[in-house]
């Protein structure tokens, strides 16, 4: 009786295990096909000339320089605006804010904001930064709009990471006469940093790939210069890629693949920076 029951439970367990493996396999396989497809098509076009040229009507002369610089400016400024704001907001909400209805109201609405379509942020950016503050179609306008877009993601991930720090650690620190800030600075933040970084990377990856809000605020597609300062006009990688795929000629489609490779490499570089910071953090912990 018991052994029959046990056999059935083992059967269910292994069924579940194999479905998990299958689903993971499918996801990884699709990713591999995608990367294979993109690299075989795009690799031949990927050279220094491609990285160092501005867009052109002639595929062999066309390059991604303005978009690459634009994206670096955009992500850099977005990180500058969004990371401190988001992390500080999360610290406030978790460590300082009283647990009352107002705080809960803010919490819920931050979660709601994370679900707002990016085009809506584009409209907001257009009205607020481009028009009202007269920042025009500059990198700053783009970065501020992107910051609004990713702020909820950073706040939510940071809040989760901070909440996961055990209460006993805070109590230990308070019990040796630390102030709230000393506890947060020396114990809560170091323990929460890996989780916060994961959220930051997810958010910045989203910023790097977003196109709609940039189109909305008027990031140009044909730009034959790189931004020299935050007030310059700009374009970004996904906009350039989109622009190439929209053209009829086959060569431009292949250029788009090369552009995607560049985008992925930038993303991987960003991720590795985060991994490095985490590694250094965990070593210093000891």
């Amino acid at each position, binding site marked *: 009786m018991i052994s029959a029951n046990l056999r059935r439970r083992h059967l269910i367990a292994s069924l579940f295990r194999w479905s998990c493996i299958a689903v993971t396999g499918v996801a990884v396989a699709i990713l591999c096909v995608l990367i294979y497809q993109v690299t075989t098509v795009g690799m031949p076009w990927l050279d220094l000339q491609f990285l160092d040229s501005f867009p052109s009507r002639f595929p062999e002369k066309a390059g991604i320089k303005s978009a690459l610089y634009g994206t670096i400016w955009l992500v850099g400024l977005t990180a500058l605006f969004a990371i401190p704001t988001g992390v500080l907001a999360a610290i406030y909400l978790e460590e300082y804010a009283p647990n009352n209805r107002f705080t809960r109201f803010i919490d819920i609405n931050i979660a709601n904001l994370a679900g707002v379509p990016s085009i809506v942020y584009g409209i907001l950016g257009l009205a607020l930064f481009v028009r009202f503050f007269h920042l025009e179609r500059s990198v700053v306008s783009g970065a501020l709009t992107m910051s609004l877009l990713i702020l909820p993601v950073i706040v939510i991930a940071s809040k989760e990471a901070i909440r996961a720090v055990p209460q006993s650690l805070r109590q230990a620190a308070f019990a*040796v006469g630390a102030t709230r800030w000393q506890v947060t600075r020396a114990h809560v933040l170091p323990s929460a940093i890996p989780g916060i970084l994961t959220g930051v990377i997810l958010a910045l990856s989203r910023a790097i790939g977003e196109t709609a809000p940039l189109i909305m605020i008027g990031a140009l597609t044909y730009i034959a210069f790189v931004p020299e300062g935050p007030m310059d006009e700009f374009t970004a990688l996904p906009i350039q890629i989109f622009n190439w795929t929209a053209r009829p000629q086959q060569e431009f489609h292949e250029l788009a693949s090369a552009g995607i490779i560049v985008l992925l490499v930038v993303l991987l570089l960003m991720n590795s920076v985060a991994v490095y910071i985490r590694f250094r953090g965990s070593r210093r912990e000891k």
Partner: protein
Amino acid sequence: MNVDLNEKSSEQNNVTSDKPKILDIRDVSIAYGGELAVRNVTLPIFEKSITAIIGPSGCGKSTLLRSLNRMNDFIENVDQTGVISLKGDDLYGADTDPVEVRLKIGMVFQKPNPFPKSIYRNIAWGPTINGMEGDIEERVLTALKQSALWDEVKDRLQDSALNLSGGQQQRLCIARALAMEPEIILMDEPCSALDPVSTSRIEDLLFELKEKYTIVIVTHNMQQAARVSEYTAFLENGVLVEFGDTDQVFTRPANQRTEEYVTGRFG
């Protein structure tokens, strides 16, 4: 729970001591969201002595203990009435800084909670952030020796504290509290996660510490209370049922509930 708040249930013998009172707990009641956990407790703590708080699970021992160095401040929905004073200064006065209270009254928790840092940093952090005078390194060594941990860790002060055994971690937490040179050390069941050997080491330690410090210890272990403490308070349902010399409480309890509890015929 509807219990008459004015019910004066404690049959306190008028405990006299040649030692001065360091803490004065007067008519303290503590409630969580309206639910009373400590009811009208009045209790003196004498200087350079060990006071044990005993009582069944959930009777409010930890709550009372936490109120003595304002660790209840971090719990939501806590209401507290009554007066607690340290050598005459109200711990909850309007111009009292809770950080200063915790500097004078240290705490060791039920579960060892070392910082996820090196053994050295665990002890050095408190004195450093408080800008305490003197050589920090000296202070760390002294604290480690006082807590009988020195011999086991002297060669690996830079190792993570998380690699220590549970008993070692708890002694590290005691060292961390000692390094602050508080006047009073509160201990909430410091041995509950420890084996008998570690427990007896900590008990030995307590004997030495009471030369310099005042200790309030919560324990479920009757033998421990009887062995280490000079005064014992018995709490039940948030009410202080009996307080007196440990000898008297264990051998000639004035209250029948106390007698049932200390002899194990409780319930």
